[in-house]
């Protein structure tokens, strides 16, 4: 049976079987187009309405603030380009360690009347909110996007600290909460941001659904035109099965949040203790952070090599963000934290899920320990 130990939950998560149960009818006899007015269509529409309420409840928003998209990347693109599209130009400010799907659309704006400003992160991987607030006051950005939880380090940034500076600058504040949802409690109102991105497949839901939660007063230009679905902000026939699955996954994530977080934290702490004993150098790893993510490296051992060897030994982990895994460049996040490129190349990310067991962690630590001896021996021969 194909079943390596999966420790790459920040890339994507296994689909929860309770979520699959909600989706399956829409892949079978409940196949209607939600825009159709007959019974088939009305069933589909009702499922989307239910999911919208579930997503809204999970993040403390109103259902009418939830715009379904094909995923987190689209939602981030929609905010950056959509909020920019309704304005003439100005400054767009983003955190230095944002995901490429925030960074790249922001870069696209440059030259179209926009300037891009980077908000610095600290050596711990957290956004430097003091320096950011000063920059925001100086440059008065129209749009600010700062992620809540970093996908690589798991560092939780104090995005709330930007609310007042951004408000005074007259801009809109967005947070990419893709990695935060399901791992920490989220509340759109308490956070005080005007927009937030969430994704289904990072919380036990299917790939193919995400949402931009956006306050009604933010004037947005649609990025996909045609038919006027999702309050005119995102056209296209709704992916009913995925949306229904996303809703259910959100509901479960909220109900089980404390238990899941506790389970993941135990597994992570156990792993980190063992890794430190083996001489690992942690990247970030400073509270506040996600309960499931460990990011580390061993001096002079290439992260890619270690990941490939661990894969052959039956453990699925990552050397960086999944989306940029094809890229041999050292992690941009680590460079932004001031890590030297050679050291950054050693980075390995282990991300736990709610079903990761102590046994998985122990086996992982033992395997990596044995591997290190072998790799060090090889390095010695090479010298």
């Amino acid at each position, binding site marked *: 049976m194909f079943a390596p130990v999966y420790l790459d939950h920040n890339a994507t998560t296994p689909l929860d079987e309770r979520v699959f149960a909600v989706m399956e009818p829409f892949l079978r006899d409940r196949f209607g187009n939600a825009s159709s007015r007959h019974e088939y269509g009305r069933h589909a529409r009702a499922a989307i309405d239910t999911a919208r309420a579930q997503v809204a409840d999970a993040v403390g928003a109103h259902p009418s603030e939830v715009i379904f998209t094909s995923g987190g990347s689209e939602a981030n693109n929609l905010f950056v380009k959509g909020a920019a599209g309704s304005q003439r130009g100005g400054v767009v400010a983003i955190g230095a360690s944002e995901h490429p799907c925030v960074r790249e659309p922001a870069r696209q704006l440059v030259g179209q009347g926009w300037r891009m400003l980077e908000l610095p992160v600290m050596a711990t991987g957290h956004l430097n909110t003091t320096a950011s607030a000063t920059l925001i006051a100086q440059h008065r950005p129209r749009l600010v996007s700062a992620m809540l939880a970093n996908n690589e380090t798991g560092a939780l940034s104090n995005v709330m600290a930007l609310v007042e500076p951004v408000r005074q600058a007259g801009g809109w504040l967005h947070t990419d909460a893709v990695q935060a949802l399901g791992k920490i409690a989220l509340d759109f109102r308490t956070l005080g941001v005007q927009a937030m991105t969430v994704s289904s497949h990072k919380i036990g839901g299917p790939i193919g659904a995400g949402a931009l939660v956006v306050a009604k007063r933010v004037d947005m230009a649609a990025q996909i*035109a045609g038919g006027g679905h999702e309050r005119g902000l995102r056209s296209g026939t709704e992916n009913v099965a995925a949306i229904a699955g996303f809703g259910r996954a959100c509901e479960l994530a909220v109900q089980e949040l404390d238990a899941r977080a506790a389970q993941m934290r135990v597994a992570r702490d156990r792993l980190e203790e063992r890794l430190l004993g083996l001489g690992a150098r942690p990247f970030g790893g400073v509270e506040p952070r996600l309960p499931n993510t460990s990011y580390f490296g061993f001096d002079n051992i290439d992260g890619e090599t270690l990941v490939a060897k661990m894969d052959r030994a039956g453990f699925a982990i990552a050397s960086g963000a999944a989306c940029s895994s094809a890229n041999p460049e050292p992690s941009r996040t680590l460079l932004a934290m001031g890590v030297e490129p050679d050291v950054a190349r050693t980075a390995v990310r282990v991300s736990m899920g709610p079903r990761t067991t102590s046994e998985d962690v122990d086996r992982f630590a033992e395997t990596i320990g044995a591997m290190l001896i072998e790799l060090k021996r090889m390095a010695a021969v090479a010298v």
Partner: protein
Amino acid sequence: MKFPIYLDYSATTPVDPRVAQAMIPWLTENFGNPASRSHAYGWTAEEAVETARENVAALVGADPKEIVWTSGATESNNLAIKGAAHFYASKGKHLITLKTEHKAVLDTMRELERTGFEVTYLDVQENGLIDLEAFKAALRPDTTVVSVMFVNNEVGVIQPIAELGEICRSRGIIFHVDAAQATGKVDIDLNALKVDLMSFSAHKTYGPKGIGALYVRRKPRVRLEAQMHGGGHERGMRSGTLATHQIVGMGEAFRLAKLEMGAEREHVRALRDKLLAGLTTMEEVFVNGDMEARVPHNLNISFAYVEGESLIMAIKDVAVSSGSACTSASLEPSYVLRALGRNDELAHSSIRFSIGRFTTEEEVNYTIELLHNKIGKLRELSPLWEMVKEGVDLNTVQWAAH
């Protein structure tokens, strides 16, 4: 028989059970992110994505490298038209399309108009087909992109894509075709057709919703400005985590379409002919759109002297559309039927029957009987019908304003 009888295959199709079967393991067991290069979960998913890409390419005579995954035909249309219009903007800013295109094309064109492009919306002939002479006359030196749909979603007419492609290619104009309603219904060979960009949808061809593709020609090479940015998936043309199960579903759906299209078309044609014969025995019934250049899956009929909303309510046993699915929430008469020259009353009293893989003869017989019965009753209640039966020419009647 299962009620309501589903005759709305142009709005969406059921997922073929074989497609669902192919998808499910990718939901429940092999859940990896195809972009994860560091472990077998990712590689297995990536392999499945590439097999699906081959299946999609094979149905339309393309190279797998020419297929870009999107979230659906709406996104494909947006990417093709905005992506090409912007990329080639230095060559010109004039675009051409038809008044009967899907909203995903028309709304995209409107958006481009707001940012400095000029768009010509061509009229169609009464049969729904483009007038090639009018098209040629509309071409300008600064025309960069033409977008014409393969098969119309409301009336099912097939536009002369081969001829249009010749004209566009000879003038160096990028030609985009929305083929959402064409796959599995008409033969598509992109080796022969001079089409540069073509949009596909899975859920109109027995695949899942939430997945589509855009064909982007490599020889001669067509360039696009990406519309969704991020990790650089799909060779930079479309970022975002690939939904493996949906992609596998689209691949399987298109593989089945290639295998079964011929037989299925005959099955559908026989049922359509039966439905057509059964309904046109009634008086004052008009078929919308050309009957020759048309897919057999679609039958769009206007029932004069019957109020459209009442008709839909009366035939609740049959799931059909009174306009295209995407616009049927509004009470505006269909802009497609108006473009064919139908007046508002007739447009309002039109029904789109769309037949598919799982439609049975029994269902068609039931539908014919139901329509006869209900139209008869509704017309009995209609004062207009009474006047017509008494020989009054309604066009000469002076109506009092109120």
